[in-house]
């Protein structure tokens, strides 16, 4: 186990590469998800405003 984590002395380089990559993928997932929600809410608010404007 110890041997696995030490990565033959390259632990820092190997683990930070994998760490950055996993973090990057998680970031992309969350950003895509939240961008959808943000756009949905924007359109929803825009529509309510638009309806009011037309009613007047």
């Amino acid at each position, binding site marked *: 186990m110890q041997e*696995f984590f030490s*990565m*033959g*002395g*390259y632990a820092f*380089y*190997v683990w*930070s*590469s*994998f760490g*950055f*990559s996993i973090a*990057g*993928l998680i*970031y*992309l*997932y969350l*950003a*895509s*998800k939240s*961008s*959808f*929600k*943000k*756009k*949905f*809410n*924007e*359109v*929803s608010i*825009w*529509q309510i405003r638009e309806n009011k404007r037309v009613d007047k």
Partner: protein
Amino acid sequence: MKKWFHQWVSPPHLYERADRYAKVFLFLAIASILVALYGGLVLAPADYQQGDAFRIIYVHVPSAWLSMFAYAFMAGASFVALVWRFSAAHAVATVIAPIGAVFTLLCLLTGSLWGKPMWGTWWEWDARMTSELVLLLIYLGYIALRLSFEEQAKADKAAAIFALIGVVNLPIIHYSVYWWNTLHQGATVSKIGKPSITWDMGWPLLLMTIGFMLFFGAITLMATRGELLSRERRTKWVKELVDINRGVN
């Protein structure tokens, strides 16, 4: 075929299907990435020259490949959008740019972390690295160009032309290791004929790349849905859809 294609590029159809496909892609992506992580970090033997540092290949090469694949996809969508005037294709290209930029950044970061122990330097102005950095700048340029226009149609057109010009950089990245005497090693996987990587080391790399591609597909579809809603806000299908789902999201 033509009918099928037209149906696919119709925004309401794409919006509806995208959700289902995104979920399937995401599930398959996570499964392949997890198996590939185990394969790459545990099962694959250490390299006889590079020791365990070679394992960085399992995140570096898939990010590099995706940085280029995403660009090719973005340019392809831009081409389709320009020639056949499919607005949905502009939406796809728009959302790919920041995703591609993140993959490019990951490629540069992991490359740097590989370069330090192997070459003794974090960075070298070598053809492969410089052209990959140029790819990042092209992505950022594309995003900036879009933001600089008020009018959607103008932004779409300018961005699509920009994306098509930027395609020139793709073969430069790919062939840089042959055309110039680079510090970066030559191709091991995408070599014509036989790849020079053994199957023990190769299968996790292949699976990781497939996983990254599926993941790219999933998040692109997710983000495209939002972009479509925003662009089509004046249409009937969006009005109805937002009315039904208001409060749910």
